[in-house]
Each structure stands twice: as structure tokens, then as C-alpha cells.
């Protein structure tokens, strides 16, 4: 594929059916899905593939529902339409390596969302009811059961929501591997092609001006992650997507001692041990952004707080050293739902945005591929339509 080489990639594509904008997980997974169905497509990425949110997140596959911190109990109702998508995501990740013929560190050994207070336990119970109704296999287990399953857990854990489908994947490898497979199936993958303008020349007739020539496309899919709203604005569509910065941390390596994904019902925490033996610790603690350089900066308070939460749930973490922190962009919609669909005011212009992008990315891309290849769109997608009233842009969780 044309991702290699520090020089300009060869052959700027001129004509295509589908132009995908954004070389993150969504764009790459969509490219692969379309390639398998024989759809002519071009993937345009302004930098290198996978360098933003898809490659800078911590690689958690939180299949069980996760409460965004700071939300009241109404969040559960909010998330009900998403539960089925979470269940489907678990299956999609399990199938991924065999289906795509790639090795990208997918390890689905299950996960625990732990509770330390009775309030947190009550929330878990309500959550499990919704998850089960949607076909998501989760169970509330006691603190003792959780520790039997995961001996490194603190005695302060009184209960946990166990989900066998939770897991991890190597976020550095997934999207590039899918792009590579897509390219093998004929999709033209074009990194270092920034889309500068999109001219709507008619229904299903777009002219994209990039930094390396023009692309003429019948349909456009905006999969630009945190920049999705910016790309949509090029065709006059306004989307309520709020980008924010979150920090991650990694420790020195240890022998294998934790194979589950650990999250917390009341605090910001995702914690797991990677294949390399390092602990990757995140959970959505804020970082800062330097717009002029597109630089994301970690924050001291977030490092301190994240380490405190991690060490209080897995005490042996306190004996280790953190060797690196980094920050990446996250983004979401006010109603926490993905945006998947065609914009009615600009026929042919599609939006593909997942919010909880890594975990839900495969399924969202699959739904978009279905939409692009089916005669009539599925009514199930109505809750994710770009034209729905998702509310005004709000702060991240």
C-alpha cells in the first residue's frame, strides 16, 4: 500500500465511488469492509494513519457499559440504545483477527467494573439489568469472587460487574493493519493527503481538493474523529461534536499478573496489563491542548489522581514506576451516541463518528458499510442519524 515512503505517495486518485476522510480506526475499518464488498473507495488521511485518537487511546475494549463520571442516574436510560451495539462490538472484536487475517493483540479475557461503596453497587445492579436485556452478558459478583478471579484487587472492592467480552487490543496496530488489508483488496490508501475543500457539485457529486490533487467522488464519508465537525462544515453541515484531551500512563513492565480489564464504577479508571508486561492506566483524566501545534499535553493533577485511583484498586501498582504519560484527543456528542448516516441536506455526504471510538469502531464502520451498500437504510440507524437532535455541544465526561 502507499503508506510507506517519506516522499510523496505515488498516484493521487482522481475518480472514486466513496471517498473516506480520516485514517483512524473508523476510516480504516470502513475501507476494509468496503474493499471486501468490492466497492471502489479511496481513504484520505491528512497525516500518517492512526496517529490521532485511534492510535493514542489506551486500547481498552470496554464492552460493558461505562458510566461517564459526573452523570446522574439518568445516564442508564441514555445508554439503553447503545447496549446492543456494545454487545455486537464484543463479537466483532472476537472475530476480527481471524476475519481480517491480522495479528493486532486482541485479548478478550474479560473485565471487571469494580464498586467500593453500596451506591456504586446499586448502580451496577441497574446497569446489569439493562445490559442483559440487550443481550450483553454481564454479572454482578461479590468482592470475594472478584478477588478469586483477580487476586491483585484491593480488599476495598465490595462487588464488580463482570463482562466476559471486555478486553484489550493494541491500538497502535489495529487501524494500520486494516488499512493494509484494504489496500490489498484494492482500496487506494492515501496518507499525507489533507482534504482542503469539498465542493458539492450536485447530488452525489463531490469534488475534494486535497494537498496532492483532486478527488472526484460520488459519496463522501466523514470519519475524521475529533475533526468530524470541521470536515462537515466544509459542506455546510453543523455537528455538535466536542473534542477533549485525555491522558494515559504506562508503568515499567512486570511479570504477567493481571489479564482482566479493570474499571471503576465511581472513579475514572481503566487499567490492564499489556502483553509487554507494562500496566496501561487511563480512564479519561483531562489533559490540555496546544492548538497551534496540535499538541496534546498531559497534566500533573491527572497523573497524580489517576495513579491514586489505580493504586487504591490494585495496590501493587504503588510499588511500580510510571515511565511515560501521553495525551490524546477524545470527543463525543451531547447524547453520547455515535453519528452514523447520510446528511439529508447534502445527499451523498455521510458522517461516521463513534464517540467511544475504539471499542465501538468496528461495529460503527460495519453499519456504515451496510448503509453504503444497501438499497434502503435500516430503520435501526435512526437513533444515530446526523439529523437527530443530539443537543448542544457539552464538555466531555
Amino acid at each position, binding site marked *: 500500500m502507499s503508506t510507506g515512503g517519506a*516522499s510523496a505517495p505515488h498516484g493521487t486518485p482522481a475518480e472514486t465511488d466513496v471517498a473516506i476522510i480520516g485514517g483512524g480506526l473508523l476510516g480504516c475499518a470502513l475501507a476494509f469492509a468496503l474493499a471486501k464488498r468490492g466497492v471502489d473507495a479511496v481513504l484520505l488521511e491528512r497525516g500518517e494513519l492512526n496517529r490521532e485518537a485511534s492510535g493514542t487511546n489506551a486500547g481498552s475494549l470496554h464492552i460493558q457499559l461505562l458510566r461517564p463520571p*459526573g452523570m446522574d442516574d439518568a445516564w442508564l436510560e441514555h445508554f439503553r440504545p447503545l447496549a446492543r451495539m456494545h454487545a455486537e462490538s464484543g463479537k466483532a472484536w472476537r472475530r476480527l483477527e481471524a476475519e481480517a487475517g491480522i495479528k493486532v493483540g486482541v485479548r478478550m479475557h474479560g473485565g471487571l467494573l469494580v464498586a467500593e461503596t453500596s451506591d456504586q453497587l446499586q448502580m451496577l445492579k441497574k446497569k446489569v439489568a439493562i445490559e442483559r436485556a440487550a443481550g450483553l452478558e454481564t454479572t454482578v459478583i461479590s468482592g470475594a469472587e472478584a478477588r478469586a478471579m483477580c487476586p491483585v484487587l484491593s480488599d476495598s472492592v465490595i462487588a464488580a460487574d463482570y463482562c466476559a467480552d471486555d478486553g484489550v487490543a493494541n491500538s497502535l496496530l489495529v487501524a494500520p493493519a486494516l488499512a493494509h488489508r484494504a489496500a490489498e483488496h484494492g482500496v487506494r490508501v492515501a496518507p499525507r493527503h489533507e482534504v482542503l475543500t469539498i465542493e458539492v457539485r450536485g447530488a452525489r457529486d463531490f469534488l475534494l481538493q486535497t494537498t496532492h490533487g483532486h478527488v472526484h467522488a460520488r459519496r463522501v464519508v466523514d470519519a475524521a474523529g475529533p475533526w468530524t465537525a470541521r470536515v462537515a462544515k466544509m459542506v455546510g453541515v453543523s455537528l455538535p461534536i466536542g473534542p477533549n484531551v485525555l491522558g494515559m500512563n504506562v508503568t515499567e513492565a512486570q511479570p504477567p499478573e493481571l489479564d482482566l480489564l479493570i474499571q471503576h464504577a465511581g472513579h475514572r479508571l481503566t487499567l490492564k496489563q499489556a502483553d509487554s508486561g507494562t500496566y496501561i492506566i487511563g480512564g479519561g483524566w483531562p489533559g490540555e491542548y496546544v492548538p497551534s501545534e496540535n499538541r496534546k499535553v498531559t497534566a500533573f493533577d491527572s497523573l497524580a489522581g489517576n495513579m*491514586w485511583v489505580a493504586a487504591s484498586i490494585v495496590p501493587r501498582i504503588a510499588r511500580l514506576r510510571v515511565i511515560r504519560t501521553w495525551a490524546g484527543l477524545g470527543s463525543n456528542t451531547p447524547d453520547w451516541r455515535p453519528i452514523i448516516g447520510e446528511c439529508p441536506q447534502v445527499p451523498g455526504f455521510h458522517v461516521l463518528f463513534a464517540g467511544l471510538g475504539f471499542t465501538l469502531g468496528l461495529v460503527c464502520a460495519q453499519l456504515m458499510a451496510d448503509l453504503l451498500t444497501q438499497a434502503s437504510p435500516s430503520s435501526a440507524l435512526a437513533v444515530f442519524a446526523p439529523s437527530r437532535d443530539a443537543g448542544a455541544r457539552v464538555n466531555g465526561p
Partner: protein
Amino acid sequence: MTTPFESVQREVLVIGGGPAGMAAALAASEAGAQVTLVDERPSLGGQVYKQFSPAFEVHDETRLGAQHRRGQQMIAAVMDSAVEVLADTVVWAIWDREAFVCRHDREVRRILARTIIIAPGAYDRPVPFPGWTLPGVITAGGAHSLVKVFRVSPGRRILMAGSGPLSLAFAAELKHHGANVIMLTEACRRPTVASILRLLQASPGNTSSLVEGLQYLGYLRAHRVPVRWSTMICRAEGDASVERAVITRVDPDWRTIPGSEDVLDVDAICLGYGLFPSNELTRLCGCAHSYDEQRGGMIAWRDEWMRSSVPGILVAGDGAGVSGVATAIEEGRVAGLAAAVDTGHLGADAATAFVQRAHARLRRQRRFRGALDRMYRVGPGVYDLADDSTVICRCEEVTLGDIKAALTTCPVDTQGVKDYTRAGMGLCQGRVCGRQVAAEVARVARVPIGSVAPNSVRPPVKPLPIAAVAAEMPERRRPIVELEP
């Protein structure tokens, strides 16, 4: 909620207790500035003025040499001054001119300074070749510490392999301390009469350095330690540790000459191929850098007051380009005066006169250094010694073959190699493998190594004990950010 971490404000924070940092701290403090000096080692001195472990008693100071005495005097001057010294203190991050330090591996403190002088020094250039990860292969700096601080010899039969004046000095010093150095290999050519004359021409005011060098050579000759010029180590062999060193002749670009190999029975190999500046903090702060292979790689840009491109951040000494102890002291003084000016303790006019005199001395030193660097030019062959099975990233055990394979599919940059192979993701965060990875990227991209961007530096720049930094913090919502226009 107030932060549980002690936070202090200082006028001037100096990072690094070597010659540059001590000179800077003294100059700023003497001008009346309130100065804190931090160093990660338990005692001041840095590498070059490293003191004995306190377990040893010194009976005869005169035998320790002039350099040691100069170091002792400087350390004593700092300890007698108003400078606040925090030893055993690692600066692991700087965010907006606030330094975050960890003391004694257990206590995180924040120091907000009006001016920060970064004087972190340098570390040994890693030179990967087959067998370089065998026990018994150590850096010259490591050997120096073993011998000088702990009075332990790195082996019974030692090969000193490297290039440049430091390698020569170390070989002589090791021998002087009683270690059995069996040979010194120097990658560069034997100096010609012409090159020595050029050195002499560049030397007015620097003859002492030249004399010192000739003394070291004489010392090795007198003690029957052979010096092989145009020679490099190309392989270390042994089962569990080093048993043999294979050396080879090299051309002026340090490319090996086939068929010229020689095998030596040794149990220790000290590598002294010069130094790399510790530029993690200046890179973390976003200071502008340029590339100079001879002075160690990426070096921070500075004006004549040692101010970097980032306001409030000054840089002095080998950490801003390897130039040796005399230059480090001059630069440190200038930076200290600049800090005194910036904090209002000294008029710019008063300082300017001194800084002009300092720059006259610095110019002389740089002329000499330039001539020396031409004599000991680092050859590009330094990046060609490894074979496909040689481990390049020691932390993550990534071989050259792994890196080459990744570069056939990943984006041709250091980030691509890192993402695909994990090279640079370990404890040292690429300090050891970074340059060799950059060399491979440069090879594939057909660009000079200096134009290959190294991987980004992120806090902590040194491993940080989690117990020291963990603290309950409010879990605020993430603010929406406006992305770049």
C-alpha cells in the same frame, strides 16, 4: 481542594550539579538571586567531578589529580554559598516553567521558578554491534564510575574501544587506578604532523588540553598499553559474558575493512565513543534544537546569554552540545548572570562586560574544540556495525532485523518504528536506541540523520515512583478544546 504536594517559588532553579550547573548557581547566587540547585545524584560534581563513595577515606589528596581538586573546590564553594542544594532529586517534568521533582525516590515537589537553567550534562554514545549486550561490555562512563567511585575494576583484561580525547583520558585513568587495560582502539586515524599543527594553531590559551592529551598518550606508551588507530570493535563474543573482542581496521568514515580483523582475549570492553547531550528536558520544554553529530546530536539553540528559544529557559554545558568542562563552566557562569539579570539582581550593563570577556574565552575554546572535532570526526560507519540479529532497543529487545522489517510497511519515521516494534517504549524511553533507529529511518528515506525527527519526549523524563505521585484529586469534567484552525 489544595494540592497535597509541597509547592515553592524560586527566582532561579538550576538543574544539574555538574560544572555548568554549579557555575551557574554560584554566579546567580553571588549576584543576589535566590537559587535552588537540584541534582539526581546523592552528591554534587556531575560526571567529570564525581567524588568518591563516602565509604572510602582519602589519605593522599595530591595523588588524585588537578581535575579532582578543581571539582572539590567548586563543590565546596557551592556548599558554602547561599545556594539551596537538593541532592538525590530528579526533575521529571517541567510544565509551564514549573519543575516537578522527586526527592529520594519518594517525595514529589513542585518548584515554580522565574528562570530555569537546564544543565543536565551528557551520557555515553551507545554504539550497537554484535555482542554489545553481553555482560562485560560497559560504557566508559560506567567504567569510570566503577573505578573512581567504588574502586572496582570492570574486568581482568580490559579493551578500551572508542574515539576522542575522553576515551584516551579514560584509558590512561583506568590504567593509573590499577586496572589492566590491554589495548586502546581509536576509530580515527593517527594524527598527522599537519593535524597537530592545526591543533596548535587553534590552541592559544588551550595548550594545557593538548599537553594533557600528549601526557595520556605518553602514559599509555610508558605502561605498554598499545594504541591502535583506525580500529574499532566490531564484535564481542562469549557464552555468558565477554570472552573475546573482535577488532577491525576502519576507513576514515569508520567503515570496516574486510579481512582486517583481529581477536583479543578480554573479559571487559569499555566503549568510549564520545557523549550525547541529555536533551530530554529541553525537548520537553519545546526549545528549538539543531543537529550536530560531532557535538552529540540534537542540541538546544541559545543566544549569547544561554537563553533558549523558550522564554525563561536557559541551557548550559554539555547538555547543549558536548564541549567539555572548561566550556561548561564558562557557559554556566554566563547563564547564571543572565538569570541574575532576568530576575532583576544585576544590571544588563554590568553583566555585559563579563559576558563579553567570557565569550572571548569561549571563542578560543570553540576554536580548539573545532580543531579537535575535525581530528576526531565521528564517521557515519558508527551506525553500520550492527547486524540483523543485534539487539538495538535493549529495553524491549528489538533487533535491527525487526526494525528493518517494520520499515518495509510502517510510515518511514521514528514514530512508525516505535508503534510497530516497541523500540523506545521501555525504561530508558529511547535514550539508547533512538539514534540507531533514526539512522535506519534516514537510510530508508534517503535523508540525512539530522533531518529525522526523534520520538517525542513526555513526562516523566525519568521513571517516577507511583507511590510518590499518587494523590486523590478532583475528577473534573474534560473541557471542550477548540482544535487548530
